[in-house]
């Protein structure tokens, strides 16, 4: 028997169960990449087992079995994550519960539990991605679950899936205006309580630096932020988005220096020259509470609901991690200087080298300093000397330099700087800073993003996670902190044209590229334009946009209060409309019944009684009998009505014109009669 045929001949219960199992599988599917392997396997086995039981109408396993399976699932979750709380264990348990619950679909209540767990699992997908694709997949899931819900409430016969599906779609479509209204007007508030640490994205800048950690995100092509410039666009080589500044070094790891916030940029001696660059940023969720702003921002950008402050190392930080997408306007002076009057404590920290680490590099640096050519040289000259050593010393820029510090635990930088000479930005930045410190020049690492995609999409320049970068700053008396990018010395392309070193393309992308080098880029561009609209209009819709909307409809100084009032008002109006419809509906009667009511009322005026159960045919006979030939036309009309309603090809609705003609004929008869037989007193 073919599959289609088997599907059609399935008993209803089995068919409904299979449909629900299919919807569940579809709902869980996108989680496969996040779930531990055991959970995926357990879910697949449970769903297949349930499918088998539905096909043969076998008995469901007993509760004891389910309890054992549940304990196993909880145990495995605990074993995998060491906890049952938090996002990942929560999602794992929800999926396992859902799979187990399908084996317990006995009563209506069980079915509801499955539906509600399903809605919950749909939401958990959005913790990982809110892309268009995920949204489309989950829309199908919602539709499937609603269809299953509708099917469960059509107990008669064997309703078709298509019928139930269209009823579910109709319900959802009718609900869409309410959804739109709530989405637009529901006041957006900040998180109600602190989130577990793993709530945010797993990529993005980090507050520490260790050899190898930047290589991880250099491979990541996802979008970090989108920039739209208003007016002048700075050159790529000037686009440094400043993230965490790492000053403390313990020999293995670089960390930011603990520092008190400053009140204004003037306090750290920020001096700017020239015209500012104005731009708008759409920042994707970040792991940190650091705003990667274009160097150098003088004022904190205004972001609704957030307090933004400045650290003495020119880092703009906020009070809590940037877990939601933000959009704000900012200002940058690409020509700037700062820190001329740096505190002695900071300078001491920027000179500190952990004893015992990297002895050969230190010796190399001291030798450079003692070199006759550098006699009495300032910080600027020494930096220049190190940079030219990088350019000419046989260094290679690569994303896969291998691991440093395995053979010499205290000499990771020695190994890079003097032996293997393969590395990427963080290796060069770290080695540069160590060399500068060895020559008694204060220096530190700055991390952030450098450069954007060369061509804008829809007017937006995209900064990808792969543009993450590490560079250095050294301190020159009088000038303050000066940027030095050692990577530019070895791979100028990386900076000038912002060409990220791409890993080898995959098979499909490779084929596409060989067919038409432009096609892939164009397809990607079109997709990203669509995705950007999605981000701007749906995902990015927040408090600021809500208030803008209110302003555009005429509120002068809109507030949270106005928003709530408007929402309550609109919802009440909708509820009233619903009640009004119900009231209007009460007066609606079958049009055929209404026609007969009119006919009977007209006949009553001719003193002809007509009972509600009598068809027009009977009334026609009575008219002929009582009125004789005068009633012929009236009887004819009645017979037509009868034919239209009960004839071989009945009309769908009564003919309004016919009713009107009938009334006219009755009026005519009455006037005729009145004329013939004047009223007797």
């Amino acid at each position, binding site marked *: 028997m073919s599959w289609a045929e088997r599907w059609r001949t399935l008993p209803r219960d089995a068919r409904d169960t299979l449909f629900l199992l299919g919807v569940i599988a579809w709902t869980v599917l996108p989680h496969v990449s996040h779930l531990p392997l055991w959970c995926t396997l357990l879910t697949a086995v449970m769903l297949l087992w349930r499918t088998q039981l539905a096909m043969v109408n076998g008995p469901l396993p007993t509760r004891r079995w389910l309890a054992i399976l549940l304990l196993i699932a909880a145990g495995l979750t605990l074993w995998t994550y060491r906890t049952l709380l938090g996002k990942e264990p929560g999602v794992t348990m929800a999926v396992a519960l859902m799979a187990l619950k399908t084996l317990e679909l006995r009563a209506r209540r069980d079915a509801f539990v499955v539906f509600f767990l399903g809605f919950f699992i749909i939401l958990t997908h959005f913790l990982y991605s809110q892309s268009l694709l995920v949204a489309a997949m989950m829309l199908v899931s919602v539709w499937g679950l609603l269809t299953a819900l509708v099917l469960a*409430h059509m107990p008669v016969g064997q309703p078709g899936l298509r019928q139930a599906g269209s009823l579910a779609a109709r319900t959802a479509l009718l609900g869409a205006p309410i959804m739109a209204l709530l989405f637009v007007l529901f006041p957006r508030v900040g998180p109600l309580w602190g989130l577990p640490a793993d709530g945010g994205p797993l990529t993005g800048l980090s507050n520490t630096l260790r050899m190898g950690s930047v290589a991880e995100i250099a491979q990541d092509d996802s979008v970090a932020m989108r920039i739209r410039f208003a007016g002048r666009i700075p050159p790529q080589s000037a686009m440094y988005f400043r993230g965490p500044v790492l000053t403390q070094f313990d020999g293995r790891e670089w960390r930011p220096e603990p520092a008190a916030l400053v009140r204004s940029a003037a306090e750290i001696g920020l001096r700017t020259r020239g015209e500012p660059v104005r731009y708008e940023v759409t920042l994707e969720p970040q792991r940190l509470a650091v705003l990667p702003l274009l160097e150098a921002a003088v004022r904190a950008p205004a972001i609704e609901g957030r307090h933004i402050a400045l650290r003495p190392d020119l880092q703009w930080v906020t009070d809590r991690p940037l877990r939601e997408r933000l959009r704000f306007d900012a200002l940058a002076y690409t020509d700037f200087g700062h820190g001329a009057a740096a505190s002695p404590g900071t300078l001491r920290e920027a000179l500190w080298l952990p004893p015992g680490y990297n002895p050969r590099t230190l010796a190399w640096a001291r030798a450079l300093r003692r070199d006759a050519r550098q006699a009495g040289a300032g910080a600027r000259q020494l930096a220049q000397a190190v940079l030219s050593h990088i350019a000419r010393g046989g260094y290679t820029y690569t994303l896969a330099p291998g691991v440093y510090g395995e053979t010499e635990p205290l000499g990771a930088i020695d190994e890079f700087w003097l032996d293997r000479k393969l590395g990427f930005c963080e290796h060069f930045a770290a080695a540069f800073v160590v060399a500068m410190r060895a020559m008694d020049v204060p220096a530190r690492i700055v991390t952030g993003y450098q450069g954007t995609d060369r061509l804008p999409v829809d007017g937006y320049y995209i900064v990808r996670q792969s543009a993450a970068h590490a560079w250095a700053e050294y301190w020159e008396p009088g000038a303050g902190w000066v940027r030095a990018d050692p990577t530019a010395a070895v791979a100028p392309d990386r900076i000038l044209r912002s060409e990220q070193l791409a890993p080898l393309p995959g098979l499909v992308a490779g084929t596409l590229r060989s067919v038409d080098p432009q096609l892939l880029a164009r397809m990607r561009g079109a997709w990203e334009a669509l995705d950007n609209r999605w981000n701007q209009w749906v995902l990015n819709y927040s408090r600021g946009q809500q208030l803008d909307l209110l302003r555009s409809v005429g509120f002068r100084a809109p507030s949270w209060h106005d928003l709530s009032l408007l929402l309550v008002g609109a919802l009440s109006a909708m509820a009233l409309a619903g009640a009004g419809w119900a009231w209007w509906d009460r007066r609606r009667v079958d049009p055929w019944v209404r026609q007969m009511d009119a006919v009977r009322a007209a006949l009553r005026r001719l003193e002809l009684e007509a009972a509600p159960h009598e068809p027009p045919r009977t009334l026609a006979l009575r008219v002929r009998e009582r009125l004789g030939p005068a009633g012929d036309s009236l009887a004819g009309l009645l017979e037509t009505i009868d034919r239209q309603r009960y004839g071989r090809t009945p009309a769908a609705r009564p003919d309004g014109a016919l009713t009107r003609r009938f009334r006219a004929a009755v009026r005519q008869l009455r006037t005729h009669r009145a004329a013939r037989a004047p009223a007797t007193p």
Partner: protein
Amino acid sequence: MNVSPERARAARAGPAADAPLTAAAVLRHPIQAWLHGRLRRTESLKLTQRNIYILPTRAGLMFAATLVTLLVASINYQLNLGYVLTFLLAGSGAVSMQLTHNTLRGLTLHLKPVAPVFAGDAAVVEVVLSSPWRARHGIGIKLDGAPASTLTWVDVPSGGQASARVSFVPRARGRHDVPTLSAETRFPLGLFRAWTVWRPVGGVLVYPKAERPPAPLPVARPMPGGTTAARHVQGGEIEGIRAYRRGDPLKLVSWRKSAKSMETGGELVSRDTSASAHQELWLDWAACGTLPAEDRLSRLAAWVLAAERSGVHYGLRLPGMQVPRSQGAGQKRQCLEALALWQ
């Protein structure tokens, strides 16, 4: 009505008497009784916004709790798509309330005449639902107050009719009103339950429970002034049949008719060679010995059935009334009616 105390109690408690009483039911009972007492009995019921009640179901409350959870998660993780999902579900839920109400609104209910039954047998009430517009799904009819498992489900096509049968078991004889009915629906999402309560006009006649096993029929007496002898001359001819009497020779048993009779719960049938038409059989209250009144009525009902099956002419005598001798379906109905309504 002369009813034994246990029976009267059973009759009052009605069909739900077997269901265990919960605390809520105890509390609800007098309020419901008072509310329903205020309802007028009507020939038919047109469902409008004024006689449809709607409340969220337990699943609806669960759904609301789910929505709150989803909303809190969306707020805490700042998920705009989470808001979209939550509000889409909320919108669908709100619309489903309207749709659930729509499913009942505009329907017209009326009742088909209810066939008489014997006490203790199920009386079948056929409710016809007509929908002037809009196809309707998943409407359940039951006796008001009966458990949800007794719902009879029906779909009504647009502009058409559908009928649903519900049954109840009257415990005592007499003329009973059709009990209060309720129609409900949870379509489409099961989050709301809309229902209506209807007290239809209409009665059901309940005959006394026929005694089982039936006592043997009393002996028919020859009709006074009948010409039995003359019939005998033509002799040996089979004139008719009658119920088997103990002592009838086996060859007199009409096996074919017996089989038919026993199929319908009757007894053996013998050929009656004694010109039954000229015998008169009186089913007499006085012939039932010293039984209590209701048991006598039961025995008489069983006799009416047996007499009708055997094809003799029979009459019924009750204190204060009498049904003259006759035969056929009309006679049977008349006798049973007399038994049902006798006071």
